[in-house]
């Protein structure tokens, strides 16, 4: 579903993503970990072309991120994104935030969009908060609205960039639970996170990055219980 083919990304002369081969299959939950600055966000943002790759190719459902603007929009419709800082539209209520993609991208009527949005808000446990503005919601609630907003465009895969890093520890669980539900329903996911128990319980792949390279890529439980390298071992000690 996602294929990195010798994909590279640099900012100026700074190579942030070394030539990378990686493929994520339909239904997989790929958890990406690694030290700060190792290129995790960049890798994720290349998938939906928020960053333009410099070399190789990257295919999402067979469409290249190097394609036409219409191709890029097609990829973005198929790949929902959830950001560390939520990035909800502050001038819209929770309901309107979730309806936005249905109306503007899927071209649903207002009433259809509202029906979809209410179902999705129910799914993330926020139906009662539908008329609240983002500023009237806790961080965890905002992030759940953001997940519902991304789902409203009916993506085939979801990209999460540290979705719980901006949250107080006690609010992380509610977001993790929503993500876990999504994974159980078979959603293909790429998740950058430091939550190791999420990686272990929900992840089907664990990818360890360092200096723009994929260093390890394997079964989470196996990698976590017997770290194959000193660096990985040190990194795990650091985050746990």
């Amino acid at each position, binding site marked *: 579903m996602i294929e990195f083919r010798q994909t590279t990304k640099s900012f100026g002369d700074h190579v942030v993503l070394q030539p990378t081969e990686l493929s994520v299959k339909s239904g997989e939950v790929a958890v990406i970990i690694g030290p700060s600055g190792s290129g995790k966000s960049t890798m994720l943002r290349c998938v939906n072309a*928020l960053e333009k790759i410099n070399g190789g190719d990257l295919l999402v459902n067979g469409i290249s991120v190097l394609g036409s603007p219409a191709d890029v929009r097609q990829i973005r419709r198929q790949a929902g994104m959830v950001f560390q800082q939520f990035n*909800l539209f502050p*001038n819209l209520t929770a309901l309107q935030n979730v309806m*936005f993609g249905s109306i*503007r*991208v899927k071209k649903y009527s207002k009433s259809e969009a509202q029906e979809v949005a209410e179902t999705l808000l129910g799914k993330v446990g926020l139906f009662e908060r539908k008329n609240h503005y983002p500023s009237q919601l806790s961080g965890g609630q905002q992030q759940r609205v953001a997940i519902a907003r*991304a789902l409203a*465009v009916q993506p085939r895969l979801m990209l999460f960039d540290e979705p719980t890093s901006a949250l107080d520890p006690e609010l992380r669980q509610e977001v993790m639970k929503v993500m876990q539900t999504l994974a159980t329903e078979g959603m293909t996911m790429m998740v950058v996170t430091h939550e190791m128990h999420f990686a272990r319980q929900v992840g089907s792949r664990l990818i360890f990055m360092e200096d723009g390279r994929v260093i390890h890529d394997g079964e989470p439980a196996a990698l976590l219980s017997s770290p194959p390298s000193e660096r990985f071992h040190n990194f795990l000690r650091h985050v746990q």
Partner: protein
Amino acid sequence: MNFDWSVLISAFPDLMQGLQVTLLIAFSGLAGGIVFGVVAGVALEYGGRISNALAHVYVALIRGTPIVVQVMFIFFALPLIAGIRISSIDAAIITIIINSGAYNAEIIRGALNSVPIGIQEAGLAMGLSFPAVLAHIIAPLAFRRSLPAMGNQLVNVVKDTSIFIVIGVGELTRRGQEVMAENFRSVEIWSEVAAIYFVVISAFALGLRLLERRVRLP
């Protein structure tokens, strides 16, 4: 001296005619100035090399010269250069639009710039084109952000109409001067003219403040 109240009443119809002209120029300036400001502001913030450079030159030229000189140029010099005749009221309207557009452009550029990148990316990441993101996500937020400064600028437009006395447009200030030239009651007339400006501008400022409150986010 004695303040003759009856002068206020007898001058009132003439001054109201002047006010009509003032409002015509002001509203043309508001509407046209917003259009110019949006176009130039978008060019400043998102334009390619050429449109960006053009917008910069426009803003710099207008902000770097007095409005009186601008209207003199448009009324007296432009007809000679371009070989067209232009009425004083048209010259006034053109000047106010071009002038306020340049000031609006800077305000609008700043407001567009204030919309967090992450919020724009949230729109792009759904598969919207950039123009759609600009129209449906950035514009509503930039509009709110620009209101206080735009409000000030729009009030200035109303005040600036009085300088068109220099090309003889029959707006409120000019009418005041004409009436005074007939009756020599400068205290009464200028008090009345000032009061009329004050009422109009205060009402306008109040309207803007109400609008600001209406669109304020929780």
